[in-house]
């Protein structure tokens, strides 16, 4: 059986979720590997959410927000933008490959762009293989 990555996608309500919706209503075919969670703003994504998703078995985490300058709350996506580079480095210190965490800007009219991002991320994760995080933590409880 081929490995199918599980991606948790946090999408902002105003642009990216609407963009994903457009991908659906436009009948664009894309990989079914992303599980979408709608949040009000990409700034709502606490680093804790990303870590928890990975600790509980996600193979990748995708965060999408409005393009810089277009945030419904004016500045929210800049807060996501500032978290991203440091969080990526932190995850890499834990041995988590950089392909597993991705921040993208998707507007409400970019259904195609959303579909392409999901296809691309799914393909990269398929090549990378499953995340080891959940299995490693389960082993630690049993074997010292």
């Amino acid at each position, binding site marked *: 059986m081929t490995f199918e990555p599980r991606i948790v996608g946090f999408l902002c309500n105003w642009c990216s979720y609407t963009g994903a919706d457009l991908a659906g209503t436009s009948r664009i075919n894309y990989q079914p590997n992303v599980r979408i969670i709608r949040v009000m703003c990409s700034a709502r994504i606490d680093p804790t959410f990303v870590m928890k998703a990975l600790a509980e078995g996600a193979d990748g985490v995708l965060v999408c927000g409005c393009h810089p300058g277009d945030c419904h709350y004016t500045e929210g996506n800049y807060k996501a933008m500032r978290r991203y580079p*440091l969080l990526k480095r*932190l995850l890499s210190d834990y041995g988590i490959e950089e392909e597993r965490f991705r921040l993208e800007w998707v507007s409400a009219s970019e259904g195609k762009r959303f579909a392409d991002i999901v296809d691309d991320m799914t393909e990269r994760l398929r090549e990378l293989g499953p995340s080891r995080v959940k299995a490693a933590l389960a082993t630690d409880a049993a074997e010292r």
Partner: protein
Amino acid sequence: MRLRGDAVTAPKLQVALYWGAACGGCDVAVLDTNEFILDVAAAADIRLWPIAVDGKYHDVEAMADGELDLTIFNGAVRNSENEHIAKLLRQKSKLMVAFGSCAHLGGIPGLANLASRDEIMEAAYLHNPSIEPGNTTIPHPETAFNGSPLTIPQFYKRVYKLDDVIDVDYYLPGCPPAADQVKAVLTAVVAGELPPKGSVVGASERAVCDDCERTKHEKKVKRFYRPWQIMADPDSCLLEQGILCAGPATRSGCGVRCPSSGIPCRGCYGPLPNVRDQGAKLLSAVVSIIDSKDPEEIEQIVDGLPDFTSFAYRFSLPSSLLQRSVRP
């Protein structure tokens, strides 16, 4: 605060103090209560305290279950001896207190979870500059010597916090816990005035920043500084000056001793109540002060935070959501 009082007639409290993977600083913190410790000695029988009292493991093994009223356990769980004694003391003790950052959250030894056991062994016994060149001896749990096996505790793959291996009743945070907090907790135990099981005791519910007396303004920085790169203003917030400080994500109760003496908070009192991951919260707080909307510039500013992970989890890596590196 005197404990003596009716201690002459009341049965003496049976106490054990133990260290796991620790530096000894927590034991010194107990002694830092000065003459108060003599009151403790008058009100309590100290049955085991490897650093100060001549009790042995077999004395503990010979005790009835629950014979001890209180065990104060400092240090993380790094090897099979730490875990074995933790389990033994849990069995013999009515109350188990995780004392200090290492027992509470994993502490400084927990930073080793970013490296594998093999990497640690190689660094410590093969490639360290202080090792004699050509050395190939690495300790193993069991070695044959003159036909009979010699054993030492097994060094675990990673560090655990105390409540990963046993049930813990109370947590007393700090590296080390402040002496007046230690006194207050010991006094509460003697008086039987105990909070609900699982509480963090000897600490506050606020952040270090709430108690810090430095003046705070809007925080916006274009670069971060290591403490030695800048003459810090003694009165204003360190983070505002670009000096990494764990105050926003750290529980207070320490007396704000570090920021009051010009040293940034390092986070030893652990996360605030209801926070699952201290480093994640610190990351959010730190990047929120970056004064830029340009991804490339943000990358450059973040370059000024080398080894942020070890700073964010200096005392709490084994208790973080991800707990350890998954690198093989």
